[in-house]
C-alpha cells in the first residue's frame, strides 16, 4: 500500500533523499563567507578571528583613504562610461537583429555580439594586454581609453540580452500603427518603440554597470600604472595584508551590486 501510494504521487524534487541537506549546504557555501565578511567589516578590532564589538571604524578608515576614494571614483566613472556606450551599441544591435528581415549570417552576428560570454575572460584579458601594449608603444598613450574600450566590449552582451528580450516580446503591429498614423520611422522609434523597450534598456544598463564595476581580471591586465579600480585595489591590498578595511569596501560593493541587480530583476520581471 505504502509503496503504491509513493509511486502514485507526482514527481517532486523535494522528495529526493537529502534534498534538504544539499540545499542547506549550498546556501551556507554561497552566503556563509559573505555573511562572515560583512560581519567582520563591523568589527572594532583589526583581528580577523575575534569579533570584539560593533563599529563603523573600518568604513571611516576606507572613506578617508585617498587611494580608496580614487579607485572608487575611477571604478564608477569607468562603469558609467562603459555601460553607457555598451547600452547604446547593444540597443542598436538588438534593433538590427530583431527589426530586419532574416538574412544570411544573422546567427553569426549573434555569436559575435555574445563572444565575451563564451571566451574565457583570462584569454580575452591576455589578448587585450598584448594588443594594447602594441598600441601603447606605438602611440605612447596610457589613458583610461583602454579600460573603457575593454569594459565596453565585455559589457555589450549583458546589455544586449535584456533589450533584445524586450524587443522580441513587443507587438510589431504597434510600429505599423505608428506609421499608419503619420509618424515617420524616426518618430515611430522615438514615440513608440523606445518607450516600449525602455525598461529593457535600463535593465541592460544596470547589468552592464554591475559587470563593469565587479570586473577584476580584464582590468588587472589592461590598466596602466596607477589606474587602480576598486576591485584591483582590493586585490593589491590582499596581496600584502588582509585588513577589515577591505571587508568594509567589499560590503559597500555588495550593497551597490544587490541594489542594481534587484533593480534589473524588477524591471525585467514586470509585465507590460
Amino acid at each position: 500500500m505504502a509503496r503504491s501510494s509513493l509511486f502514485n504521487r507526482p514527481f517532486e524534487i523535494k522528495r529526493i533523499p537529502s534534498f534538504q541537506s544539499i540545499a542547506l549546504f549550498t546556501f551556507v557555501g554561497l552566503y556563509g563567507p559573505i555573511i562572515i565578511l560583512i560581519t567582520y567589516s563591523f568589527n572594532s578590532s583589526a583581528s580577523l578571528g575575534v569579533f570584539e564589538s560593533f563599529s563603523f571604524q573600518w568604513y571611516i578608515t576606507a572613506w578617508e583613504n585617498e587611494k580608496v576614494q580614487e579607485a572608487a571614483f575611477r571604478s564608477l566613472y569607468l562603469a558609467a562610461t562603459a555601460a553607457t556606450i555598451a547600452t547604446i551599441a547593444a540597443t542598436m544591435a538588438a534593433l538590427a537583429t530583431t527589426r530586419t528581415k532574416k538574412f544570411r549570417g544573422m546567427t553569426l552576428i549573434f555569436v559575435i555580439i555574445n563572444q565575451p560570454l563564451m571566451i574565457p575572460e583570462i584569454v580575452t584579458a591576455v589578448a587585450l594586454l598584448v594588443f594594447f601594449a602594441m598600441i601603447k608603444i606605438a602611440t605612447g598613450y596610457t589613458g583610461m581609453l583602454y579600460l573603457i574600450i575593454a569594459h565596453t566590449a565585455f559589457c555589450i552582451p549583458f546589455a544586449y540580452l535584456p533589450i533584445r528580450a524586450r524587443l522580441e516580446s513587443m507587438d510589431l503591429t504597434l510600429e505599423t500603427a505608428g506609421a499608419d498614423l503619420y509618424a515617420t520611422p524616426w518618430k515611430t522609434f522615438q514615440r513608440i518603440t523606445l518607450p516600449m523597450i525602455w525598461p529593457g534598456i535600463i535593465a541592460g544598463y544596470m547589468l552592464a554597470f554591475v559587470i563593469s564595476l565587479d570586473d577584476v581580471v580584464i582590468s588587472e591586465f589592461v590598466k596602466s600604472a596607477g589606474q587602480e579600480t576598486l576591485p584591483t585595489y582590493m586585490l593589491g591590498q590582499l596581496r600584502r595584508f588582509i585588513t577589515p578595511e577591505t571587508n568594509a569596501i567589499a560590503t559597500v560593493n555588495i550593497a551597490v551590486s544587490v541594489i542594481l541587480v534587484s533593480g534589473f530583476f524588477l524591471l525585467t520581471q514586470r509585465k507590460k
Partner: protein
Amino acid sequence: MTTNDEAIEIKNALKVYKGDTDVYALNDVSLMIKKNEFFTLLGPSGCGKTTLLRLIAGFEHPTSGTILLNKEDISLLPPNKRPVNTVFQNYALFPHMTVGGNIAFGLEMLGWSKSEVASAVDEMLELVKMQDLKNRRPAEISGGQQQRVALARALAPKPQVLLLDEPLSALDLKLRKQMQIELKRLQSETGITFVFVTHDQEEALTMSDRIAVMNEGKILQYGNPRDIYHHPENKFVANFIGDSNFLLADIQNGNAVLTDGTELKLSKENKQVSNGQKSILIRPEHVQMSKAKGSKKAFEGKISNIVYFGTDTHFHLELKTGDDFTIRKQNTPNEGTDFEIGAVVELTIDENAIQILND
C-alpha cells in the same frame, strides 16, 4: 456615375511572395471603391483580402500594378504619407499611452496645434461614447472599449479612407452585433469611405454597400449584397454566401432539365444562356413544399431529415435525381408538423429563383 466619385482605384495589382514556390497573394486584382461607401472584402482566410488592405494602407507595396487614391498614384508612398488610417485586428493600441494619448497621436504627427488636438480628441471620444475613459490605459479597459478607442484613433485625423481589418472578430456575438450597427452609424455620420475586411458572410451582407468576394488572390465577383446573394456568378460565391443547393442541369431552350428528366422553367434573362450542361443554384428559402400529388412530371423529393431552428425549419430531402436538397421553411404559430420524415413532397420553384452558374 460621375468621374469624381471614386475614392480608390486598384489597377491590375499583383503581389507575389518569392519562395521555393512563388505565392500569388494577389493575382491581377482590379477594383474600384466609391466615395462614402461601405465596401467589404469578403473571403476565406488566405484569400488575399488582408494583403489588399495592407497594399491600400501602404504597409506593403504591389509587385506590379497601381493603386490610385482620388486619381493620384499612391502605390509607392509610405503609410505615413497616405491619408488612410487602419483599425487593426488586434487594435494595436499603444499600451504606454492613455486613451486620449492614443487618439491624439495621429493628430500630433500631422502637426496640429495643441488646442486643435485637444478639441478633436474630445470630439472623437464623444463620437464613440468614451468620454469617461480618456485617462485610462488600454490595459485598463474592456475589449469592446478598446475597439472603440481604435476606431476613434483611426477616425480622428479624418482620413479619406478608413481600413478595417476584421475588427470585430475578437468580440463576442452580442458585442459584435452592437458594433456592426455602431460602425454603420459612424460611417454615415463621418461620411468617410470604409473598406472592411471580413470572412463572415453575414457581417458582409448586413453592413456593406458593396461586397467583393475574393478567393485565391482574385476577386470573383463584386456588387451590392442583393446581387451577390441572388445572382452569384459561380459556385464559390454561391457557396460562400448563404446556403445553397447545387444541381446539374442540361439547358435546353429555356428549360433546365435535371438528370432524371424533370424540367424546370427558367426566367426570361436566363433564356439567353446557351444550351449545354450547367450547374444551377437554388436557395433553400426559395422553394415551396406541398404534399405530392403523384404527377409524373413533378419536381419531387423525399424528406430524409428535419432540423428545427426556432425561426425556421430545415428539411433535408433526397431528390429523384439522387441529389441532396435542403429547404428552409419559416415557422408560423399555427403550423404543426405537416411534413414528416419519409414523406414525399412536391416542390415548387419560382423561375426567378433558379440561377445558372458559370462553372
